[in-house]
């Protein structure tokens, strides 16, 4: 394989009290990408993450994180992976700086280097002014940003974020997403677990949807949309000023067109490949004034709803 994989799992399985939470999970995350792990609550996202970090032992199967097996070599994994838990906690009696210093010390960061790094990461998350404030006084958004600083201070190769945007206001979410989107440029891979579809869509290169411990679908958002919604087909919408019955017949006869539906002035055409040029020609030939035509872009919501409606 030419591409390096940051995360790779093989039949990863975990049971809690006889219930299979993660069920033969297979997925991979390439280096320097943002991968979104999606799924409803209880789908096994957090358990998967804990197994990737070596905080929980898998019942069977195997994971590899940056080339290490987290079950066998947890310390090597923890040295290069930064993890932001869903409910991030700080020692409330300590200041932001002291909290970060403690984590830096646990990571054996050089003494001379610690202060410089603290300033650097606090600058990145815009908390420089609150450096000496006890974290007990921090707001939810500030804690979350401090959590990111806390993860960045060990300069990890891979960052795992578990629901990082929950409880944040829209401004906070935007700041956080911008920060996340910039991480791959610095040579950091990000695994983002969330059920906030819009946010995942904004920053993730690839996504995987978990349901009942299984990966139901995995790939890039554009690819998934087509797979999920049209079964590998395209959905092309054509709007004309006055739709004519003969146009519908002509469209139906084009090779590759599977289904044509009308909705007022709108014609929805399902095809098995990109037939825009043939369709536009047919519309123009029929003398119907063409208002607009577009290939339907799938949002993650559509994909998501499609998968969870089926259950």
């Amino acid at each position, binding site marked *: 394989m030419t591409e390096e994989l940051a995360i790779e799992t093989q039949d990863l399985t975990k049971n809690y009290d006889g219930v299979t939470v993660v069920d033969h999970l297979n997925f991979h995350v390439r280096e320097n990408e943002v991968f979104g792990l999606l799924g409803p609550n209880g789908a096994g996202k*957090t*358990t998967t993450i*804990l197994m990737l*970090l070596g*905080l*929980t032992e898998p019942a069977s199967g195997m994971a590899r994180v940056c080339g290490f097996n987290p079950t066998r070599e947890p*310390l*090597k994994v*923890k*040295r290069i*992976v*930064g*993890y932001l*838990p*869903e*409910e*991030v*906690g*700080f*020692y*409330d*009696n300590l200041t932001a700086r002291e909290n970060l210093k*403690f*984590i830096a*010390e*646990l*990571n*054996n960061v050089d003494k001379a280097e610690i202060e410089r790094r603290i300033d650097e990461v606090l600058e990145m998350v815009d908390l420089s002014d609150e450096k000496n404030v006890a974290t007990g006084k921090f707001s939810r958004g500030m804690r979350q940003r401090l959590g990111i600083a*806390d993860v960045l201070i*060990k300069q990890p190769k891979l960052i795992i974020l578990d629901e990082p945007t929950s409880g944040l206001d829209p401004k906070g979410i935007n700041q956080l997403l911008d920060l996340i989107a910039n991480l791959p440029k610095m040579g950091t891979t990000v695994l983002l677990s969330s059920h906030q579809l819009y946010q995942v869509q904004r920053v993730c290169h690839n996504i995987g949807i978990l349901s009942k411990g299984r990966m139901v679908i995995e790939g890039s958002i554009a690819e998934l949309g087509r797979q999920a919604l049209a079964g590998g087909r395209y959905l092309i919408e054509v709007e004309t000023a006055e739709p004519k019955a003969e146009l519908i017949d002509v469209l139906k006869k084009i090779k590759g067109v599977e289904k044509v539906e009308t909705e007022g002035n709108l014609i929805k055409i399902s095809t098995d490949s990109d037939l825009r040029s043939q369709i536009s020609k047919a519309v123009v030939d029929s003398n119907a004034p063409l208002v607009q035509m577009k290939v339907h872009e799938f949002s993650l919501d559509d994909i998501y709803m499609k998968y969870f409606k089926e259950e």
Partner: protein
Amino acid sequence: MVAIVRKELADYFTSIRFFVLFLLVLLASAAGLYAAYQGVRSALLETGAVTGRGFVFLTLFTSSGEVIPALIFFIAIFVPIIGIALGFDAINSERSGGTLSRLLSQPVYRDSVINGKFLAGIVTLAVMVTTTVLLVSGYGLRMIGVPPTAEEIIRLFIYLVLTIVYGAFWMGLAILFSVVFRRIAASLLVSIAIWLFFAFFMSMIAPALANAVVPVSDTSTEAVLIQNAELQQTLSRISPNVLFDEATTVLLSPVVRSLGIITYSQAIYMIPNPVSLGQSLLLIWPHLSILVSLSVVCFAISYVLFMRQEIRAT
């Protein structure tokens, strides 16, 4: 692990909890000293220490005043409380604060976390107990003007170690409950309940049980009476508090030569002089080893449970 111990120590020493406990300890030392001030003269006359055969300096710790009990009594009460206060939220506060998963996702061995906490707790405990003993020694020396002999210093040192081990047992127990119970209130209450049971109820239950097993009446023979008393003693020795009290008495009152039952016919032949350090130690060797092993067992169980516990926040 050094970083964890350092952070825990800093936490302990800057916490309000520590401040309050230290204040209590200082008050107890002052009260103990006052008790000694009132009672040391009569205690010395009683034991015959004034004639040069006894231990004057140790009497500072063991003599009680008119109403105020002796310093060792205060220490016996406070050390378990300090131990519990230092340990009861060791693990579950990290869990409920959400810092446990953050801490454990750092490159540290999981046992460093619990080891570091235990170690930092013992250091804190040692600082408190040593301060008390040194303070009382210093002021006591000023008060009575008799310096301790070499043997008294050794006895005091062993007492200090014994007290720290005893405190470590209660801290180990509290840490164990902080691993078992997710809620901080639960671990605190259970620790205190166990302490109360051993401190107060055990002394009521032991005689009742002994009387039920070996009933005694006015007409009972000497053998039956001894059997009853011995059973009572054995039962009460289940309590670590009793073990600590007995060990303290033997260490700091060298005239005590036996912890068993002494009949009157035996007692009249006893010479009321102090026994040597070696003999005293021989007498409390089982006590010492049981207290050490109890601490180790408590810590070991919490260690194993913690190592196997799931880290999930919920």
